[in-house]
């Protein structure tokens, strides 16, 4: 059990209020017709699933119902921070995580 800070409600709430949305920033290829099956399968199914820091999406299901970004350590459940999607993307890019 952990507590997440919703960047929209600006409140710390219990994990049970939130829904997990998986790995963050898995962008749909801009031109699906132009890529091969491997690249499409990679987008649909392949995940980083790291043991360590993980950028992920959560939604505040029983609160504001908005999505936001969390950086969580999957080996310890430590949380480095939470951001709105736009701010999270900036922090993610600043870390050099984007492919």
């Amino acid at each position, binding site marked *: *059990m*952990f507590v997440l800070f919703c960047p929209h409600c600006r409140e710390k709430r219990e*994990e*049970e209020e939130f*829904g*997990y949305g*998986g790995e963050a920033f898995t962008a749909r290829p801009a031109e699906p017709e132009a890529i091969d*099956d*491997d690249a*499409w*399968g*990679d987008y*649909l*199914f*392949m*995940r*980083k*699933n*790291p*043991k360590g820091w*993980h950028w*992920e999406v959560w939604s505040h299901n029983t609160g504001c119902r908005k999505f936001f970004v969390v950086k*969580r350590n*999957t*080996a*310890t*459940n430590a949380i480095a921070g939470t951001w709105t999607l736009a701010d999270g993307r900036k922090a993610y890019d600043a870390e050099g995580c984007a492919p």
Partner: protein
Amino acid sequence: MRKDYSSWSLFTKGLRHNEGWEPAWRSAEPKPSYDVVIVGAGGHGLATAYYLAKEHGVRNIAILEKGYLGGGNTARNTTIVRSNYLWDEAALLYEHALKLWESLTQELNFNVMFSQRGVFNLGHTLQDMRDIERRVNANNLNGIDALVLDAAEVKQRIPILNTAKTARYPVLGASFQPRGGVARHDAVAWGFARAASAWGVDIIENCEVTGMDIANGRIVGLETTRGTIKSERVGCVAAGHSSVLAKMAGIRMPIESHPLQAFVSESMKPVLDTVVMSNAVHGYVSQSDKGELVIGAGIDHYTSYTQRGSPHIIEHTAAAIIELFPMFSRVRMNRQWGGIVDTTPDACPIISKTKVKGLYFNCGWGTGGFKATPGSGNVFAYTIANDEPHPLNRAFDLRRFATGHLIDEHGAAGVAH
């Protein structure tokens, strides 16, 4: 040479106060090179090594284990064995395993306490019952024993089950697989370890793989915490840590690792002589030979490697079990734990070659790998020995996530294991 266990050896050793038993397997130091290295000494990895030695004549095998033997999901599951899966590919694979289970104790000369006490999958809605009828028909066509029972028949076989029409989710019936059951999970690891060791397999504990040496698209060796080990064939059977290993080889996996919790009660007199599972209220329970209720349910929804989950999952699980068995509300729980399960998008395993020559993966069993232990090891050994899949695991190739030939067991049987 291994000395067989028998009632005579039990008797004579008993006369000598059980002194003089030899260790069941040999703990080995790593050699510089092996013909085949298996990463992960859980049930599936040990079974793979055993069948490689026994059926494919490979003699120079090592199993590397980062912790201790059978200390991962093999020791953490709820020990249910069944094969009543909907789709042909999955049903045939799990049925292959179930057939091996039926003679495993004799095969290994080790009592794995396989008990075919039957498995009930309850239906609580009309749609549940339609799905159950469809699945039972599919099972029968595949030569798998399965039957549909109505609520009265279920009540007759499980008197303590709440089948009242006034229940929040009334039981309308069930599918029943008489040949399903449970086995002693630790004994499976110990039995395979002992049998593999007798074939000369090196079991190396406390040896974590930290890197893979790949040259010209071929695996040539592994970097470990106990030095470099050369091998041109490597089979990874690391369950929740498969993505971590795959990354070392530059392979992306369609796997997400989630905690799955289970718990046992204090020991009680026999009260439940079968296995009861319910997808709708989402819980499953059986009673171990020791008398504990063994209870499990769904995964924690976030990915994690922590081997512990969140308390509200326990609450949901307990609620489901009490819904089915109101008399269990006064049972005290003894222990709770979590394991890391490697879930795939189609709830089916990956038993496959990879783009790296000589590197094989057996993973993605998610929440239901224990039941497949001997079958999984058997077909994976074939895959490694022949560098091509066994007919039973051809469909479980990693390539299916590019070709789109998924085997969607989620709706049918993959939800509750």
